[in-house]
């Protein structure tokens, strides 16, 4: 991507996509309540129609590979009755789109597109009124096809949307029906269509960005090149908690180094070329204090259980129904187990990168962020400029799956650009990405349950310990100590406690405990849910096995709702599930390879239901677990783009198989040792299972999230399958060969 980025470069190929920087700002900017951002109450903030009929739709949400761009455009095209190719999406530009919160948590299709759906319905109503006036006929006599309004089938009485409104403002006020950025919604007088009338929704429209991706012409933050742009590399501390004591010069001269910038513990080398920045950072003589702030990965779960909760996050009662203690006393049988889910790394293939151009008190920032608004606010604070002077242009990063180091790189670029008065590009090195990105915190669980004489759960007691998230977007070295604000882990804020809520237990207690973070923690695909599901859905399996019940039948007798029951039955069908208790009858076989199957359910995660069945082969000699097939039944509500949904299910499943079999952040007392793809391996081609998917369409329901829910179920499904195969319950992840072999040998 060349410097021409600053001019308009609208790409259009096979559908709705636009890459446009420097296009004139939306006219609503001056009226906005949020500084510099368009006003959600104006229809013009959401849609504009050009004379040629092109519909430009503006959303604060961003797409980074989930095909939201395509799915959003499908809904808008259907609401307006225009061809799919007529819709162009502008996503996330803080100067031109309404603030709609972070593009995270799998809620783009659920909440992100909702106001656009309502705005498009209203735009259609307004356009029909204009046409009715023009032809002097009642609106009821009008029909719309491909953006052409016709009156009573009379060819002389037809007019295009472009002719009706082309390049003019609607000047229509919408009612903001839901405040609060992520859930923001608007309503006009028109109702959105009955989804049974949709023609484009429900089709597997190809993603318009793909022809550009395969020819390397798709914009990517890593490829932003500005005139006079300099490159920078950060010099990060050798250990968490280490501080700079001295910054010397370059140990060997590096041609091209422009400047060394230091501010407290923030050290960076700015150079004319990327290679000079890398060589400069490697050669800079920096002395750090020695810091040993970690308990070592072996001690991490003990730390979580024994740490004193920060004053602002006392133990939280997430859910309490009935009387768990009393019910446990009356139980025919009780169970208890501890589960440990390690810290994991987002593993972004492209290390974090940001490009910024700060001129005086104005900043233009090219960011791979998931949350342009908070990136903007962080930068404004750091640079000490008004927020409306900072324009954040989201450009696709590498798939990120959670808030991560990308924001560090962006903010560092802005700071460095301010210092050197030139555009600056910052990219992390691989080891920096692996060891300094905000990690998914570890979690440990104690579960207790009691069953009655028929083997039905009558009490469920769930307690989790994890550490708080750090939400400050400044690079860790630039955060003033007093600003290291921690955020309560997300699941503790939600009523229901995750998967436990799939079942209608009469006596239920869900407790969340928050420890002070030892490493910067943040969201990673399915945050909180994957951990709770890993523990809860294996514990369900333990009880089913101990009471001689089939795992799916056992779940179905515990108050699973109709949608949950439907995905369970569907996954049983596609996996040819044989009803029987675990472990498998072959568990005592002497064959080297043991085979098993296991199930897991997630109910109503972002309005989506998923049941996953894993099939595994366990090598009794080496302990190696091979996941051979994954069967995934998904009810995502209204299906907008089946192939896009399948791509997300495949990706989310593989990501979670990788997390289950391989991934754990390792550290000693001083530092992380998982610093690259050898020390932190992820799933490879030869290890990827076959994936069989079945979708259940619910046109009467809103479209549900899809990036995260299928990522939630695999760890428990695989853990249950390993138990089914070898009769040994492994309650710690990852299921490495060494761990499984040791468990088999001691069993």
């Amino acid at each position, binding site marked *: 991507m060349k410097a021409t980025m600053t001019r308009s470069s609208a790409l259009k190929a096979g559908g709705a996509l636009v890459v446009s920087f420097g296009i004139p700002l939306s006219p609503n900017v001056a009226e906005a309540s949020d500084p510099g951002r368009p006003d959600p109450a104006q229809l013009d903030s959401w849609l504009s129609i050009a004379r040629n009929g092109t519909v430009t739709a503006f959303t604060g949400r961003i797409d980074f590979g989930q095909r939201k761009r395509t799915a959003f455009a499908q809904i808008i095209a259907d609401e307006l009755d225009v061809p799919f190719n007529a819709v162009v999406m502008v996503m996330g530009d803080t100067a031109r789109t309404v603030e709609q919160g972070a593009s995270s948590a799998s809620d783009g299709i659920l909440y992100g597109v909702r106001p656009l759906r309502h705005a498009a319905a209203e735009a259609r109503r307004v356009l029909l009124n204009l046409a009715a006036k023009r032809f002097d006929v009642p609106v009821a006599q009008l029909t719309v096809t491909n953006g052409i309004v016709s009156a009573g089938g009379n060819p002389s009485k037809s007019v295009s949307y472009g002719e009706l409104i082309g390049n003019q403002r609607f000047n229509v006020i919408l009612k903001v029906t839901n405040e609060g950025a992520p859930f923001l919604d608007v309503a006009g007088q028109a109702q959105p269509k009955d989804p049974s009338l949709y023609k484009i929704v429900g089709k597997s429209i190809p993603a318009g960005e793909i022809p550009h991706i*395969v*020819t390397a012409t798709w914009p990517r933050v890593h490829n932003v090149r500005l005139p006079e742009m300099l490159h920078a590399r950060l010099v990060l501390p050798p250990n968490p908690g280490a501080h700079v004591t001295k910054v010397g010069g370059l140990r060997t001269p590096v041609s091209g180094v422009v400047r060394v910038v230091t501010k407290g513990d923030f050290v960076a080398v700015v150079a004319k*070329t990327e290679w000079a920045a890398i060589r400069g950072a490697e050669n800079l003589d920096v002395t750090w204090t020695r810091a040993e702030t970690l308990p070592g990965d072996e001690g991490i779960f003990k730390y979580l259980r024994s740490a004193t909760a920060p004053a602002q996050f006392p133990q939280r009662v997430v859910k309490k129904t009935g009387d768990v203690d009393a019910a446990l006393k009356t139980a025919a049988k009780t169970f208890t187990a501890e589960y440990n889910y390690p810290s994991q790394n987002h593993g972004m293939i492209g290390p974090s990168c940001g490009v910024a151009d700060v001129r005086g008190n104005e900043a233009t920032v090219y960011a791979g962020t998931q949350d342009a608004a908070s990136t903007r606010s962080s930068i404004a604070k750091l640079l000490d400029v008004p927020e409306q002077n900072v324009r954040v242009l989201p450009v696709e990063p590498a798939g990120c799956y959670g808030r991560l180091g990308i924001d560090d790189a962006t903010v560092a670029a802005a700071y460095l650009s301010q210092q050197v008065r030139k555009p600056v590009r910052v990219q992390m090195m691989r080891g920096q990405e692996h060891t300094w990105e905000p990690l998914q915190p570890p979690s440990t669980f104690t579960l207790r349950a009691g069953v009655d004489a028929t083997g039905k759960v009558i009490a469920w007691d769930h307690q989790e310990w994890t550490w708080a998230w750090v939400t400050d977007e400044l690079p860790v070295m630039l955060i003033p100590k007093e600003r290291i604000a921690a955020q309560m882990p997300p699941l503790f804020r939600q009523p229901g406690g995750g998967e436990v809520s799939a079942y209608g237990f009469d006596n239920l207690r869900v407790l969340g405990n928050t420890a002070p973070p030892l490493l910067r923690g943040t969201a990673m695909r399915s945050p909180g849910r994957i951990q709770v599901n890993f523990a809860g859905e294996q514990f369900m399996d333990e009880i089913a096995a101990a009471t001689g019940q089939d795992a799916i039948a056992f779940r179905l007798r515990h108050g699973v709702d109709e949608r949950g029951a439907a995905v369970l039955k569907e996954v049983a069908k596609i996996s040819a599930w044989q009803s029987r208790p675990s472990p498998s009858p072959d568990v005592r076989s002497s064959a080297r390879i043991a085979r098993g199957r296991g199930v897991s359910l997630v109910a109503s995660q972002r309005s989506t239901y998923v049941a996953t069945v894993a099939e595994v082969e366990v090598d009794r000699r080496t302990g190696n677990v091979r996941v051979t097939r994954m069967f995934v039944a998904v009810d995502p509500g209204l299906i907008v783009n089946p192939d896009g949904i399948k791509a997300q299910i495949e990706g989310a499943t593989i990501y979670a198989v990788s997390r289950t079999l391989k991934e754990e952040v390792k550290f000693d007392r001083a530092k992380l040792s998982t610093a690259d793809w050898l020390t932190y391996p992820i799933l490879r081609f030869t290890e990827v299972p076959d994936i069989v998917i079945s979708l259940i369409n619910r046109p009467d329901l809103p479209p549900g999230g899809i990036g995260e829910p299928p990522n939630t179920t695999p760890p428990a499904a695989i853990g249950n399958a390993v138990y089914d195969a070898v009769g040994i319950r492994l309650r710690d992840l990852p299921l490495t060969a060494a761990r499984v072999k040791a468990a088999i040998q001691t069993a």
Partner: protein
Amino acid sequence: MSITITVNKKQRTIESSPDTPLLYVLRDELGLDGPLFGCGLSQCGACAVLLGKKEIRSCVTPVASVANLEITTVEGLGTGKLHPVQQAWIDEQVPQCGYCQSGMLIAAASLLERVPHPTEAQIKQGMNGHLCRCGTQPRIVKAVARAARSMA
């Protein structure tokens, strides 16, 4: 002494120092977007390019070591039209974020040069040195098989 390399069929004289990894020469001096920095350690494949018809990792290849040789990036993979692997990638709707995909396409083109009709196992083995975090591997396996059929 300046170094000359051929990139996407064009001869280029390189100003970067001879120890500069080819990746930075391609990206920063020649302005190409296809090869991307993923690890700098030859572990992930995001920077893969063709040296002749063979895949190499440009992040660990000093530019001096490919002097006077022919390099092809994903930008030069098709000649006038899309290379069959690029078309197959579109047909199978492979990419999600796309960061690894230039390297994947290079690896696929290189694999099909060596093994024109690979089995599924050969495709997986042939692509195994490339990492993808989005989980596009099943579609890549299908796309390589499709490209092989279209080239037959």
